């Protein structure tokens, strides 16, 4: 993912100067699912308003219209978005995919009831349209109705229980509401769906540490350790995490000799890696990191 971002940044700089390949830039943004709305809207609209550039896109032009419409909505450029949506409506007059964009246009204006109407009419014919169901979740969130968003997500997950993006979104909302046990449950589902994803092990560990208590610290340490392994020993949060857990376990009430023995040496190894990384990449902070780890 890192190399992808570097390539996008490189293309973006060229495009900003007026010499880059805008179509390629937009395609890479779509592929990496980045949210760089003001650049996409600006360069995208310029490309779409230029008829020869538009023609060169071939069949991709419709995907680009959709991408630029959404970016324009994100920047509150409602007229530009309307232009793109208009073009799509002409080509695909009965499409639910374009219907979603019409709803989003109302959402961007804060016209929630009109957006609701658009979505309700699509759902009448297509009651399990995932894209539209996701808009309902997004609208609840946008209006600050987090418990409503939680409800909608739970309903959605009954239909689409393997949708890990939704499990992750639900976890994030639970965390914002400080409902840590529920967030932990979501991460358990995420780990089931993608057991080799280091970020899910990491997220689970962070939540358990936050809930606290000796048993949770011990489990958190295991998941921080597996996150280290799955990330090839590179994830700084996981490395720090095992050290924090070890310190927490040592100070925890109710710990016994068995716990201290089991509080294995993984954190000493992690501490060594952290110190070495700081000496290499952040020498000015190396002594700060070292003194924190000694404590």
């Amino acid at each position, binding site marked *: 993912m890192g190399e992808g971002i570097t390539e996008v940044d490189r293309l973006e700089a060229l495009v900003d100067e007026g010499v880059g390949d805008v179509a390629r830039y937009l395609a890479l943004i779509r592929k990496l699912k980045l*949210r760089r709305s003001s650049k996409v809207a600006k360069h995208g609209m310029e490309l779409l308003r230029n008829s020869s550039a538009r023609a060169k896109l071939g069949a991709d032009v419709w995907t680009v219209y959709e991408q630029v419409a959404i970016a324009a909505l*994100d920047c509150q450029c409602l007229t530009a978005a309307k232009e793109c949506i208009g073009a799509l409506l002409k080509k695909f007059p009965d499409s639910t995919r374009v219907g979603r964009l019409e709803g989003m246009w109302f959402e961007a204006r804060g016209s929630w009831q009109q957006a609701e109407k658009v979505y309700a009419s699509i759902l009448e014919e297509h009651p399990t349209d995932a894209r539209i169901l996701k808009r309902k979740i997004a609208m609840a969130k*946008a209006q*600050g109705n987090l418990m409503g968003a939680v409800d909608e997500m739970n309903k959605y997950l009954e239909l689409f229980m393997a949708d890990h993006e939704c499990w992750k979104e639900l976890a*994030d909302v639970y*965390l*914002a*509401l*400080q409902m*840590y046990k529920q967030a932990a449950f979501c991460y358990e589902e995420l780990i089931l769906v993608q057991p080799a994803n280091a970020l899910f092990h990491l997220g689970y*560990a*962070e*939540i358990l*540490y*936050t809930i*606290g208590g000796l048993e949770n610290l011990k489990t958190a340490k295991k998941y921080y350790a597996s996150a280290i392994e799955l990330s090839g020993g590179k994830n*700084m*949060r996981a490395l*720090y*995490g095992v050290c*924090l857990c070890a310190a927490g376990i040592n100070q925890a009430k109710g710990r016994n000799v068995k716990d201290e023995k089991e509080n294995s040496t993984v954190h000493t190894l992690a501490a060594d890696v952290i110190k070495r*990384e*700081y000496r290499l*990449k*952040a020498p*000015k*902070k190396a002594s*700060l*990191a070292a*003194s*924190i780890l000694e*404590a």
Partner: protein
Amino acid sequence: MKYQISQTAYVKLALHALKHRSAAVNGILVGRVSGGGGGGGAEEDSAATVSIVDCVPLFHGQLGLLPMLELALTQIEEYFSSHQEGLSIVGCYHANERFDDYDLSGIPRKIGDHIARYFSSACVLLLDNRLLESLAKAGKKPAVQLFTRDSSRGWRSAPGSSDLVLAESTANEILYDYILEGREQSVTDFDDHLDDISKDWLNPGLFD
């Protein structure tokens, strides 16, 4: 108790929020107490001033988790007490995810509570998007809402925000110029540091 915020701290926290427009952000405020009567009663002395001298941007997106927060607080306290005369953690700042959300939610309250255990006059600053949007007309008013703890240990907004002043009257103009330049892209927070430790959460070159 009066509160004052330096241009450095104020511009940095605003730029941090502007870098991550679609996410909540938070950070730690660093400063000192000055003025007022002597002795241990200084915190209660209305002539005393808490000067917020600098800030450390912490996280963007996910703000409710403890481990990296604890790590950051330890490193920040350690750094400022050993490198900068008399500076310590005096509060935190928070910017909500949504544009029209002016509530101080549970997470900044909890962080504020934690800081208040070590510094009883701790404050929480909540970014005010309305004021940030109209910076050109803001003049000498900072685009943040000040919250302090009242006698029942709850967080209350100071009436009329007259209790928080900008130490330098040029702060809003400078911020406005930086926004036009896109300077917010250069802010590094603790999240960025954890992703790449060569990035410095002290932001040494930010105002060059």
